């Protein structure tokens, strides 16, 4: 009886280990398959579907990029692998996406020559010119 119990425990342990290993392996595999970096768009999801939206071209620091019409500018940048959106005013430390609700000012950028645009809540449109903001912004 006692022996069987030990066997059972050992089997249970191995099973748990396998499950966690497999979970990680599955994740790694899907990562490899799904993301030719820097594309990070989710293709398979157990609950959600992401129907393809019309693609638009925009420019980040002069470089042409692709995003989905109407998604926040900052989301399109993240999908293109961009992490620095602005620099802090005094120390010029890089700042990126933080709150996603238009509250924290970490994603302020220059969009079509207008500074201090909260890119996490402003929708992306065809041909937008988006630039890293390095100062407090000047209104022209």
């Amino acid at each position: 009886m006692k022996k069987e119990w030990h066997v059972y425990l050992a089997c249970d342990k191995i099973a748990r280990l396998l499950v966690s290993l497999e979970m990680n392996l599955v994740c790694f595999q899907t990562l490899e398959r799904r993301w030719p970096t820097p594309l990070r768009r989710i293709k398979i999801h157990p609950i959600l579907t992401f129907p393809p939206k019309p693609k638009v071209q925009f420019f980040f620091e002069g470089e042409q990029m692709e995003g989905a019409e109407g998604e926040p500018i900052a989301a399109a940048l993240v999908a293109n692998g961009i992490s620095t959106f602005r620099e802090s005013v005094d120390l010029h430390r890089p700042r990126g996406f933080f709150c996603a609700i238009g509250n924290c000012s970490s994603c302020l950028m220059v969009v079509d020559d207008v500074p201090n645009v909260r890119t996490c809540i402003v929708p992306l449109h065809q041909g937008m010119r988006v630039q890293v903001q390095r100062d407090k912004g000047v209104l022209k």
Partner: protein
Amino acid sequence: MKEPDVLVVGGGPAGMNAALAAAESGASVVLVDRFAKLGGQLVKQTHKFFGWADRGAGARGIELAQKWSHAVLAQPQVETYLGKEMIGAYRDGIWLVADQEKYIKIKPKRTVIATGASEKMILFENNDLPGVYGAGAVQTLMNSYGILPGEHYLIVGSGNVGVIVAYQLLQAGAVVRAVIDVLPRLGGAYWVHAAKIQRAGIPILLQRTITGVYGNQKVERAETVGVDDKFRLIPGTERTFRVDVVCLAVGLTPLSDLLFELGIQEYYIPELGGFVPWHDQTGRTNRKDLFVVGDVSGIEEATTASLQGRIAGLTAASDLGYAVDEQMRRRLIEALAEFRCSTLSQNVCSGLDRLAGKEASQ
């Protein structure tokens, strides 16, 4: 200048329900939200809600967001200003909305503030480095836009938000290295979700805190260390995580800037997220024409927010002489009290009790 009966600031579960309840009673309503879409933070909540079936339990947040926002948009009594931000509240009762390059002035008879909450920040080295995200922001990116901001994640905080985000990251196909929490027990997370992520092999490391993130222009690794019962760091227990995203899920705090501007009576109640406006059971503050509902009145969740919204909407309409089903209003107030005691943590309940015990200054 617009002169509606009721002005609602915020289009989340609380704001949408306040607008609906007031409009259905006959009041004219203006609803303002700085985001281009209604729904607030419901639009990213893919998990099923707990609680009562007739209060939306079993439904996913995304479904509720859709249901309510359709109802609001279909309601002719409600005018919505989306993608426009409320930027000023003046003491003579005029509110200012910024619309691109012009301002819209609004002078309502009653105002319902439903601005929600913002993520709290904690101190550690380089906490401003790109790659440090509010957990809610990661949730928005992956659930609303289908974008994963990184490949390997560390979650700080084992409350409801932290654990649910960990689970949803798994669903989206990301690798979560660990969930850490400085407390010796799980935060406010429901056991179901905590068990799910542990079964999937994500460790929940208690009594551990983050001391810094490092990397070239963005997060490449996070340093953590164990803490003792008095929150002192224990040398020798350092552990490095190779991650490119750190999700902060260390709590929420009411977005009460507008209330502060107006000098509304606030009290510091940590259980409710920090400074919260005093209000009675209908959401009315010490200014008779001003109501607060949802997270801005104290951090809770979407079901209570929607109930609070309904109650405040009905009360505002009844103030203005519209015929309101009194029995229904009373039933909602009872339902809210009952729901809170049966599902929320003891913490929130005692916080609410403390707030109720405070005085409203005139």
